[in-house]
């Protein structure tokens, strides 16, 4: 029996998804459920001076109209420490608590009615008058109050090694440029939704979440009830990309409304409301200074970032972390700053921090390569660090150079002629560009339970979610190998807060966190079954030594004898379970463990209308073991397509006068469509990195988006000679 790990097993939940039977948060058939529609503020800052709910109240079917004047004051017991997926500094937004408007499209009321149509119609009847104050709605204005993050640690504090200013001044070749990424919204296709059901003082939430345990904790504290009186379910999540990592205010609204009307309440956000409170990638401006000697050895790197945050919380991301470890350079500084504005709080969005910072660093490196007349791949290889330049720890496995070599070969990089505008296809200008990618490999304490059923099949249980990467499938693979049976005989149940604790599905950490628990629980289960078999006279294995048996092909065998799990369990009157928690070692790490990759992109630019098309992408990644090549390929391609969106399409436009997002929809907030996506080849190096865990797999959700935008902008420069440092690369920037 060949191991299931490493096989391209089709998704376990595939049938449910292609037949429309997979139920997402808003789709649970709850008896007597009524509908809630929030009313959103039309100003960005100020106070509610009056709110007239009479007409809404009198509308047919309306059960309640809640505003700050009549909404129950939830206890909101304090967190011992903030949820890890939430912002660490500040006070989180609590809906309908006071008359203060802190950002545009803030919840100012919620209408509950028997039907959705009634609730929507009545919500339009709520009349709100405001006493507006001038809001800080443009980045330029916000800059005057820019400050250092109060959060400590690697992403909050400035960092320096050597003397970068001096080295930069003395450098033979210098780059000093500014780069911007705009505000971007996650826009998962499933909008955030919660169904709240109270049964006495027990609260059940069907919620779109990347962390049901986080939502459970949040809701319990918000309503002042014990944790075990809150149950959160989120077995299918229609994409999230970070937006469902932290519990947002609509959860409180749904549960509050359900308490008031004494009926189950469904609150499904409109697409527009998704631009209010459910997070976004913050606009970030950066300055990068690079200094090198004439042969291309980096002597100085300085990277500064100014990132948008709200006025009530400090959102800080790892924008500059990658810069400190990417290349060998003795003189380096990174300086993070925050720019508070009257917006809601940003939130981790795919490749958070790295996707932003690496756009600047990898574009600047391309500019340096041009200045040096050096090949961009050769420049990167020349500055390859032998150990982590920040921690000084040895790499557990750094395959950056290998990804560049493999990517360059598959792409045909050698055919590129370096001169700007030198490559053509018919009337089109062709550009080729490349950039690197990195993301840390992380692991958090996580638990799992594994059960041998009476039929001889296995069930894996964990509160972890599967927002699309394929956790249902990969965990079945891990369990199948650990217990020694076919993956078809493994069922995986996830995303119920009653199940064993799991960390959030974010930061590419879930597989590395959960798989060791599933694997070890599975092995212990097999050992317990072996002990049972050898002690049972009715087993063909009776009398053998348990530790000599092998668990394989759905049973145990040894000394030429064999018993299937089904036969063994047929004599049992109860299923057998093992519950296990696995945590990374507490000791300080001895190695630096990161994922690496590189992207090679070909674009065409029409010289007459300046339309940029991505024609093909080849990316290579080193992520340790690839558990499921089929789902891993989809994840890589998906991340690259997200990067195409960053490079060419995505931008949230805010009216600088009023702070209102002008494209709060999917019509004018552009994301890549089929026709924008060329052939994409994503390849993984054949490697294993045991530093992170017993399966040697590091995690690959975030990595593929990192660096894509830089590779595209470098390709556009190669085609046109125009260096676009402000994303997205739209036609007017190429004029």
């Amino acid at each position, binding site marked *: 029996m060949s191991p299931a790990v490493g096989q391209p097993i089709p998704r376990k939940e595939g049938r449910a998804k292609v*037949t429309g039977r997979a139920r997402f948060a*808003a*789709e649970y058939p709850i008896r007597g459920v009524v509908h809630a529609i929030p009313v959103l503020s039309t100003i960005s800052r100020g106070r509610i001076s009056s709110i007239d709910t009479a007409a809404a109240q009198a509308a047919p079917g309306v059960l309640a109209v809640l505003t700050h004047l009549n909404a129950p004051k939830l206890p909101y017991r304090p967190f011992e420490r903030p949820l890890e997926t939430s912002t660490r500094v500040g006070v989180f937004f609590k809906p309908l608590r006071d008359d203060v408007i802190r950002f545009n499209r803030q919840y100012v009321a919620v209408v509950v009615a028997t039907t959705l149509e009634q609730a929507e119609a009545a919500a339009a009847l709520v009349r709100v008058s405001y006493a507006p104050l001038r809001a800080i709605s443009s980045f330029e204005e916000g800059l005057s109050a820019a400050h250092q993050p*109060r959060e400590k640690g690697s992403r909050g504090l400035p960092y320096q090694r050597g003397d970068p200013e001096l080295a930069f001044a003395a450098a033979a070749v210098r780059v000093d440029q500014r780069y911007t990424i705009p505000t971007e919204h996650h826009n998962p296709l499933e909008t955030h939704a919660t169904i709240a059901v109270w049964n006495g003082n027990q609260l059940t939430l069907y919620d779109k979440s990347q962390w049901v345990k986080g939502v459970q904790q949040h809701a319990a504290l918000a309503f002042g009830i014990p944790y075990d009186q809150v149950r959160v379910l989120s077995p299918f999540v229609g994409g999230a990309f970070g937006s469902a990592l932290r519990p947002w205010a609509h959860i409180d609204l749904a549960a509050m409304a359900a308490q008031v009307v004494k009926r189950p309440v469904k609150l499904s956000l409109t*697409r527009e409301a998704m631009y209010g409170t459910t997070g976004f990638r913050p606009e970030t401006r950066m300055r990068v200074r690079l200094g090198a000697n004439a042969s291309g050895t980096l002597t100085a790197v300085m990277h500064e970032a100014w990132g948008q945050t709200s006025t009530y919380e400090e959102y800080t991301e790892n924008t500059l972390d990658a810069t400190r470890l990417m290349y060998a350079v003795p003189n380096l500084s990174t300086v993070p700053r925050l720019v508070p504005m009257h917006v809601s709080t940003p939130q981790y969005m795919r490749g958070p921090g790295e996707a932003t910072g690496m756009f600047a660093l990898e574009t600047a490196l391309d500019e340096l390569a041009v200045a040096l007349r050096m090949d961009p791949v050769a420049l990167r290889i020349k500055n390859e660090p032998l150990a982590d330049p920040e921690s000084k720890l040895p790499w557990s496995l750094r395959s950056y150079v290998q990804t560049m070599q493999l990517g360059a070969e598959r792409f045909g990089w050698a055919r590129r002629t370096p001169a700007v505008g030198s490559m053509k296809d018919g009337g089109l200008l062709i550009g080729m560009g490349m950039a690197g990618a990195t993301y840390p490999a992380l692991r958090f304490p996580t638990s799992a339970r594994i059960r041998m059923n009476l039929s001889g099949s296995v069930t894996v249980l964990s509160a972890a979610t599967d927002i699309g990467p394929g956790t249902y499938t990969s965990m079945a693979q891990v369990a199948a190998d650990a217990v020694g049976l076919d993956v078809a005989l493994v069922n995986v149940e996830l995303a119920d807060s009653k199940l064993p604790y799991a960390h959030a599905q974010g930061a590419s950490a879930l597989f590395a966190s959960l798989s060791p628990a599933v694997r070890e629980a599975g092995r212990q289960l097999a050992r317990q079954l072996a002990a049972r078999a050898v002690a049972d006279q009715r087993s063909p294995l009776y009398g053998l030594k348990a530790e000599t048996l092998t668990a394989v092909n759905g049973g145990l065998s040894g000394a030429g004898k064999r018993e299937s799990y089904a036969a063994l369990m047929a004599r049992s009157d109860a299923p057998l379970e093992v519950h296990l928690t696995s945590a990374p070692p507490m000791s300080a790490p001895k190695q630096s463990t990161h994922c690496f990759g590189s992207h090679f992109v070909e674009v065409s630019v029409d010289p007459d209308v300046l339309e940029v098309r991505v024609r093909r992408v080849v990316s290579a990644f080193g992520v340790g073991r690839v558990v499921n090549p089929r789902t891993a390929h989809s994840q890589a391609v998906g991340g*690259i397509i997200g990067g195409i969106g960053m490079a060419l399409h995505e931008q949230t436009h805010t009216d600088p006068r009023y702070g209102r997002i002008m494209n709060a929809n999917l*019509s004018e907030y552009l994301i890549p469509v*089929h026709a924008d996506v060329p052939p994409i080849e994503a390849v993984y190096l054949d490697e294993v990195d045991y530093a992170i865990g017993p399966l040697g797999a590091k995690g690959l959700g975030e990595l593929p988006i990192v660096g894509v935008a830089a590779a595209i902008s470098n390709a556009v420069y190669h085609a046109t000679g125009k260096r676009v440092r402000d994303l997205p690369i739209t036609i007017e920037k190429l004029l």
Partner: protein
Amino acid sequence: MAKNVLSRLPEIQLPDGQLPEWEQPVVTEKSEPEPVVRPGSPDLSRRTFVAVSTALGAAMLLPAAPAQVTTDAPPELVSVALKVNGKTHALKLDPRTSLLDTLREHLGLTGTKKTCNQGACGACTVYVDGVRINACLALTVMHDGQSVTTIEGLAQGDALHPMQASFIVHDGFQCGYCTSGQIMSGVSVIKEGHAGSDAEIREWMSGNLCRCGCYVGILAAVKEVRDAGV
């Protein structure tokens, strides 16, 4: 618990519940309605066009604005007969109910997805009398007596439609939220004769967004079904 970060920002300080004295309200205004986009206005994109044209269609059907309908005269429920996946339903509906909400909220057919609710994403694609439409842009009363097919009606019992099977093989999805719409459109694109080349499939599938970025697998699935000639 951490202190409010506002203390760092004296010039924009806004403590809970009180206005700084130095900053008086500039105007008191009613909530502003969203600006209306009209066909022909310069910022009309290819994706808004559908939403706008249908919004106008809806307005013709319900001459008064929905809000006034509600205050002046609550809409009477109307009877609609709808055949869905072969089964006829006699429904009494609020006339404002979209076909999408009818399927999801009244018939329990949640396989058809709501994402933008304005014709921009294709997640709600269903067939009405065999032709694909965006169910979020259709009022159910407009389809009285017609026959609707949803993703739940595509398989023959346990046997998946070849497009469904092909989506699994080519991993044409991750989260699965756009998948129903992609599959419904994929089947139609072949039937409509727009699956000739890769470029043509991409173009004719471009009304179906996938935020997970599964377009490569989706293209492979559509091609496989096209080539199998089913």
